């Protein structure tokens, strides 16, 4: 892959629901091979940004390119992990089956998954430590296990760019560590990972790039450069508890607990 070309390039992207802008004129570059967190308050449009890049919502203006081409031409290069609660976990299917769905894109229409897909899925499950759950009905999984199954489904896609929507939501600390380890592993393998994230505290530890989003992009770049108190204030409207050890928040009592809740 061309390393100079950004993995994801978003230009002038505006998304509106009934003339109410959810994302305003977003310009965003995600360099190839980085692990980027997307943070912002509730309703900042984090999920919508990912969905717009993947063509899941209609955009009012602008475009998003994956390695220089529209997403529709680059589907094979992209894996998407939606929020865990976006599907019905009572659906009659097994863990292995769900993971194999990650291969459907490569299979295309009509072709059915076979032994190769099964083996790939088992390997992906092994990587997320869910190997022994392969034959389980998905309704029997805990929240963290569900998340890991979704992650395995993305891994099996063998993509270059991964989009993950709140992979740590409702996940216990151990699972969170395991997932972060996997994401960093992906980055080391040269993949690009974009993660919608809620917990500001862990941003410097987990990610090397960060985008601060609140309808517009407030700041985007390497964590060391853009993850500053002033940028966070601009993003969260001043009422934020910033906890980094170095920078002490001015108005801790105003902290939005949900935003800054620790693990």
């Amino acid at each position, binding site marked *: 892959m061309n390393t100079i070309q950004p993995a994801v390039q978003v230009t002038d992207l505006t998304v509106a629901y009934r003339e109410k802008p959810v994302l305003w004129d977003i310009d965003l570059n995600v360099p190839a091979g980085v692990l980027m967190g997307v943070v912002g308050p509730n309703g900042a449009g984090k999920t919508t940004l990912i969905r717009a890049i993947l063509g*899941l919502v209609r955009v009012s203006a602008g475009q998003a390119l994956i390695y220089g081409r529209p997403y529709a031409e680059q589907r094979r290069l*992209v894996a998407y992990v939606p929020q865990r609660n976006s599907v019905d976990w009572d*659906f009659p299917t*097994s863990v292995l089956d769900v993971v194999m769905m990650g291969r*459907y*894109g490569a299979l295309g*229409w*009509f072709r059915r998954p076979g032994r190769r897909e099964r083996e790939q899925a088992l390997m992906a499950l092994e990587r997320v430590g869910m190997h022994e759950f392969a034959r389980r*009905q998905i*309704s029997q999984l805990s929240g963290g296990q569900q998340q890991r199954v979704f992650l395995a489904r993305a891994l099996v896609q063998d993509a270059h760019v991964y989009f993950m929507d709140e992979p740590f939501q409702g996940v216990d600390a151990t699972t969170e560590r395991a997932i972060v380890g996997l994401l960093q592993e992906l980055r080391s393998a040269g993949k690009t990972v974009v993660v919608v994230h809620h917990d500001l505290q862990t941003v410097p530890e987990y990610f090397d790039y960060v985008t601060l989003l609140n309808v517009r992009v407030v700041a985007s770049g390497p964590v060391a450069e853009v993850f500053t108190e002033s940028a966070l204030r601009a993003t969260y409207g001043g009422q934020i508890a910033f906890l980094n050890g170095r920078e002490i928040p001015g108005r801790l009592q105003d902290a939005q607990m949900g935003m800054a809740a620790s693990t």
Partner: protein
Amino acid sequence: MPAALPQHDCSWCGLPRRPVNDWSDAVTRAIGQPGESQCPSAGGTAFFATLRPPSRRRMMDSGGRAARQATLLVRHRVRCVNDASHTGFLPLRQALQQRKPCHRTARVNHVPMTPPIEIMLIAVVTAVACTLPGVFLVLRGMALISDAITHAVLLGIVLAFFVVQDTGSPFLVLAAAASGVLTVVLIELLHRTRLVREDAAIGLVFPLLFSIAVILIARRAGDTHLDVDAVLLGELAFAPFDRFAPSGVDLGPQALWLMGGILVLTLVLLALFYKELKLATFDAALALALGFAPGVVHYGLVGIVSLTAVGAFDTVGSVLVVALMIAPPAAAYLLTDRLSRMLAVSAGLGAFAAVIGCLVAFILDASIAGAMAAMAGLVFGLAWLFAPERGLLALAVRRVRQRQEFAQAMLAVHLLHHEATPQAAVECQASHLSEHLRWEPAFVARVVRRAEQQGVLINRGNTLALTDHGRRLAMKTLNGELA
């Protein structure tokens, strides 16, 4: 036997008439009281059936198979069996009031298979064809949509019938199916305005389309084939009388061919798009992201549901189609945990309900479609109660067991707390537990007995002491490993 009747097409509906076969006399005799022996427009033999079928005994008197067929005929209240070219027609109600024959085509040559077997075959094929798309309706939370579609296709049937004048035409089937798809489009458009909720949108659209169809039938199409009763409930008993006989060779009932064709089409599509259907149903967002056009899958499913609804119209009617589409899949959902098995089990349950329903209907001499739908409901009820893992009974048993296990854990924690403390003598006495833990004495006795059996504690003459195993259980509980 009325011989050498003129053979010509009905000027109104365009259907070819064929000479009445040899059992028509027996039929007429069995039914008796031909209200008017002459069809007013063409002079053929016409008869009225009484509103109630003749008694079983009378049927037997007039002899075997013909009599049986006569019962089937009788259920269709007013019938003109004979070949006649009707110039006019009367709405059913009016016909009944005036006791005039209402026009109905009877293309009867001969009935090679005995009707009950054919009826059962049609019932089974219809049921299976309904359950397969039904599985996806249930999983996608679209059960109500099936109700909307099955009603709204009537408008398509009526309008198409005005154009082609033939109820058996494939064009009519397709046009009617298209009206089902249109209904869903209308519902979604209405819902998308965000002025009404989805359930309200469904409730607004289909009764409107259905009522237009009902009015049109009442005004323009008194032909019994389109009478409102038959539309709601169908009449499987008559299905064997409409034969599929290209170039004069009888190949079986038309309904069997129609439903069989729809079933085969459904199976082929299911085999081709199984993966896509599964993905679009489980995770539409991923399906869209992977380029699988879940919208196309959605409307494909809606199209198949509509087609099935049209096909099943004649046999089970628009209300009972819903029962066959929803009840067996809903039961299978409780019995299986894989999509493929859910499909197979629903098909099996649907076929089972069809066969048993037919038998019950034959025995009770009642509506076949009604009996089938009732059986489908019964099958669901049984699954709901007795499904091994998800049934009501299994849940209740599990809840009792969990309560017991939790009580046991609580007891263990309680004993651990007071172990080797000065209060131990009081707190750990079996006879005081009910007072301390505020449990019913009987419940305490049960919990203690169970705990003792499982080696959690030992009862040393009224004082309870934890075993090592019990201590571990208590620790585990406190660490939240049990919760």
